[in-house]
């Protein structure tokens, strides 16, 4: 008989993640199971709670499957958080498989109680600015920037700017009204937020170099729900989990970037790519963030340095 899976996430039904990642994934498992697996997708936190509580909803069986940013729960996913450090990742497709492998080897305990389906990052955060120009590290001084994650807040501070917390939907208005000078946000959400109309300057790292910052995402399933499935349905879930599924998810988050850049170009916005020398300065200036992370990880009984090295190696191997 048919198994209905309650899939819960925090974005709107119009979001890239809902339309191009979660829905297609659900359609795929439906097809491969001969419609014996059916998702009932609940977007926009319809089943209650906050995005930070989503992971526990999967663990506790409030939802069967969730897609979330686990690090919204600060302090809990320290080991996995290493992929959010400054100048680590390259982009969704390039770096998501590394994240998957890293978690499998080092951080599975952080996801206990769930069956991890995939893990991924986005195409890398870009600094979008309203009117200010940033070409060098010195231009960052005193700028008010929206920070996407707790690690990014530390990075912004390390670069001499002032981090401001706010949810992504509040960003355009805040930039337009000068509450913040700009925001660190990936291209993936720039178009739905119409960020290209509000901002004039986009600061990126040189091609081939690591992105300034990233955010980790996971799709996870309640372990008991998975265990209760008959073997053939487990196989369908397995076939849509893991390294390749993570790569696909990362790719979905890369896809909107070109279109988003084109919109900005067509509006005559300025693109700033850090020079090689500048890039080195930025990396050096924010090096302390990784040190601090290592200390935190070590305080939790993990080998901070070892994990950081391992993450870097995995990322380079891709």
């Amino acid at each position, binding site marked *: 008989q048919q198994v209905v899976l309650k899939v819960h996430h925090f974005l709107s039904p119009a979001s890239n993640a809902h339309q191009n990642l979660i829905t297609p994934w659900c359609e795929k498992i439906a097809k491969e199971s001969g419609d014996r697996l059916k998702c009932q997708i609940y977007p926009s936190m319809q089943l209650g709670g906050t995005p*930070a509580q989503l992971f*526990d909803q999967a663990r506790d069986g409030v939802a069967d499957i969730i897609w979330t940013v686990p690090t919204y*729960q*600060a*302090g*809990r996913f320290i080991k996995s958080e290493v992929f959010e450090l400054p100048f680590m990742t390259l982009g969704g497709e390039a770096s998501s498989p590394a994240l998957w492998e890293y978690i499998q080897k080092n951080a599975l305990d952080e996801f206990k109680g769930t069956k991890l389906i995939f893990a991924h990052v986005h195409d890398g955060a870009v600094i979008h600015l309203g009117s200010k120009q940033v070409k060098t590290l010195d231009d960052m001084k*005193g700028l*008010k920037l929206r920070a996407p*994650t*707790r690690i990014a*807040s530390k990075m912004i501070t390390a670069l001499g700017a*002032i981090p*401001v*917390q706010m949810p992504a939907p509040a960003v355009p208005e805040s930039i337009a009204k000068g509450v913040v000078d700009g925001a660190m946000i990936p291209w993936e959400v720039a178009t739905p937020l119409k960020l290209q109309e509000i901002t004039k300057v986009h600061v990126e790292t040189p091609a081939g170099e690591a992105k300034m910052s990233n955010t980790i995402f996971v799709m996870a399933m309640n372990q008991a729900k998975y265990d209760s499935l008959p073997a053939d349905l487990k196989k369908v879930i397995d076939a849509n989990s893991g390294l390749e599924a993570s790569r696909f998810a990362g790719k979905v988050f890369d896809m909107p970037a070109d279109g988003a850049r084109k919109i900005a170009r067509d509006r005559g916005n300025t693109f700033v790519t850090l020079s090689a020398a500048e890039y080195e300065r930025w990396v050096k200036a924010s090096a302390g963030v990784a040190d601090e992370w290592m200390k935190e990880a070590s305080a*939790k009984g993990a080998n901070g340095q070892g994990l950081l090295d391992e993450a870097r190696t995995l990322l380079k191997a891709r």
Partner: protein
Amino acid sequence: MQELQALEAGADAGSEAFGPLGRTLLWMAKVMAVIGGLIFTGLVAMSLVSIVGRKLFSWAVPGDMEVLQMCAAFASASFFAYCHLIHGDVKVDFFTANMARRKVLALDAIGSLLIAVFGALLTWRTWVGAMAIREVGETSPILGWPVWVAQALMVPGFILLAAAGLYMACHHLAAMREARQ
């Protein structure tokens, strides 16, 4: 229109027909309400400092947003018992407007009992939730404060709400017996 009575009587509402236990509960509820109100006043002051700092000195109270969120949860939870003890809940009294007072009191006793159930349920689950968060070590993003403490601080408010519901149920029943005689 009990809600109206509560609105008009303001800070002096309730107490008149309460016994010693009820007066003690009401006193505790008032103390918690004032504490909650003072916390909000404090948050107002903090926000002010943060806004002025951000605008004039490019400086904001670090983690002001998360402090606001954690404190507001605690402050709000400490308001519930007071509201119930002064008959402040929103109810539809249209259909029972012409009902005998005795019957209305019986219905209100049931309503208060449900409030007690609600308070007890939230007490239990909020505590369990706080302990679960404690175990996984969730902290606030900027300041690294433990979130479980903020959640656990809501529990006294819910305990008092459960007690208030239970007391009011008995209070209504006693009034009902009186009305019958």
